[in-house]
C-alpha cells in the first residue's frame, strides 16, 4: 500500500488542472451573491455549508428573486440529487473507514473529487484510498472557499454595465454540455430545458423542478425504448 503522504499528493496532483475551472466558478459564486443583494457572509455560508457550485448559484438566483425559503431548499436538493449516485458508487471503496471519516469524506464530495477518485480506485488497488480521495477533495474545498471570498470582495466593485450574473447560466452550460454523452441524455436535457421554459411563469419555481423531473423520465423512456 502506498504511503498516506504519497497518496494524498497523488490526488492533489491529479486535481490541479481542474482548478482552472473551479477558480472562475468560485469567484462567480461569491460575486453573484453580492450582486443579487445577499451579504458576503451569506455567500461564504453557502460555500461552507452547501459547498456545491451549481446549486449555490441557483440558490443565489432564487434568493435574489425573493423566492420562498422552501423553494430555495428544494431546488438545491434537486440539483444535488446527482450526488447520491456518486455516494453509491464510492461506498464500496470507503467501506473500511470509520463512520466519522466517511462523514468527513462525504462532506467534501464533489463531481470532480468523485470522478478522479473512482477512476484511480478502479485502476490501482494499492493506493491509500482515504488519502488519495482527500488529496483530490480537500484542495478543491480550500480553493472554493478562497475564491468565494475574493468573489465577494471583487464582485461588489465590478461596474453594473458588466453583466457578471450572465456567468451563472454560462457556468451551468459549461457543466451541462459534457453531461450529454448519448441520445437518452440529450433527450433528458432537451425535454428538461424545454419544459422549464414553458413552465417559467409557474409559481414556486415549479417550472425548474417539473422540467428536471420530466427530463429524467424522458431520458429513461428513450433508454428503455418504451416509446417503440
Amino acid at each position: 500500500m502506498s504511503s498516506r503522504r504519497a497518496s494524498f499528493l497523488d490526488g492533489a496532483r491529479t486535481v490541479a488542472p481542474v482548478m482552472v475551472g473551479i477558480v472562475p466558478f468560485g469567484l462567480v459564486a461569491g460575486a453573484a451573491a453580492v450582486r443579487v443583494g445577499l451579504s458576503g457572509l451569506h455567500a461564504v455560508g453557502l460555500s461552507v455549508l452547501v459547498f456545491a457550485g451549481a446549486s449555490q448559484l441557483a440558490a443565489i438566483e432564487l434568493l435574489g428573486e425573493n423566492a420562498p425559503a422552501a423553494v430555495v431548499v428544494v431546488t438545491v436538493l434537486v440539483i444535488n440529487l446527482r450526488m447520491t449516485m456518486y455516494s453509491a458508487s464510492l461506498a464500496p471503496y470507503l467501506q473500511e473507514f470509520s463512520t466519522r471519516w466517511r462523514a468527513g469524506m462525504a462532506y467534501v464530495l464533489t463531481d470532480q473529487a468523485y470522478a478522479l477518485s473512482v477512476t484511480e480506485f478502479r485502476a490501482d488497488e494499492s493506493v491509500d484510498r482515504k488519502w488519495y480521495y482527500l488529496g483530490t477533495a480537500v484542495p478543491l474545498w480550500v480553493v472554493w472557499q478562497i475564491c468565494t471570498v475574493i468573489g465577494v470582495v471583487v464582485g461588489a466593485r465590478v461596474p453594473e454595465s458588466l453583466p457578471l450574473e450572465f456567468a451563472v447560466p454560462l457556468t451551468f452550460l459549461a457543466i451541462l454540455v459534457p453531461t450529454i454523452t448519448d441520445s437518452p441524455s440529450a433527450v433528458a436535457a432537451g425535454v428538461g430545458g424545454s419544459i422549464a421554459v414553458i413552465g417559467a411563469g409557474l409559481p414556486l419555481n415549479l417550472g425548474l423542478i417539473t422540467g428536471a423531473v420530466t427530463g429524467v423520465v424522458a431520458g429513461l423512456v428513450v433508454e428503455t425504448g418504451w416509446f417503440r
Partner: protein
Amino acid sequence: MTDSATVWLAIAVAGVGTFLIRFSFIFLFEYLSEVPDGVERALRFVPAAVLAALVLPALVIVDGTPSVSLGNERLLAGTVAAVVAWRTESIFATIVVGMVVLVGLQMLL
C-alpha cells in the same frame, strides 16, 4: 430582499440536506448490498435534465416571455458559449467567450 434570518435558515437546511445526499450511500452501504438498478439508471439523467432546466430559461426568457430571435443577445451569446463548451469542455473558456460575446453585442446594439 428576503430577511437575513430566513436566508440563513434556507442555507442551513439546504446544507444539511446536501450533506445527507452526499453521505446517503456512503453511510448506508453497511446495510445495503447494492443500489437498486432503477434508481441508478434514473440518477444518470439528473445532471443533464436539471442543468438544461436551469440554462434554457436563462437564455430564452426575456422580460417574462420566451424569445427565440436574433434580437435576443443572451441566446446568441449562449449559443456561441455552448459551442465553446462542446469543443473545449472548459468552464473558464465557456464563461469568458460567452461574456465577451454578450458585452460585444450589447455595445453594438
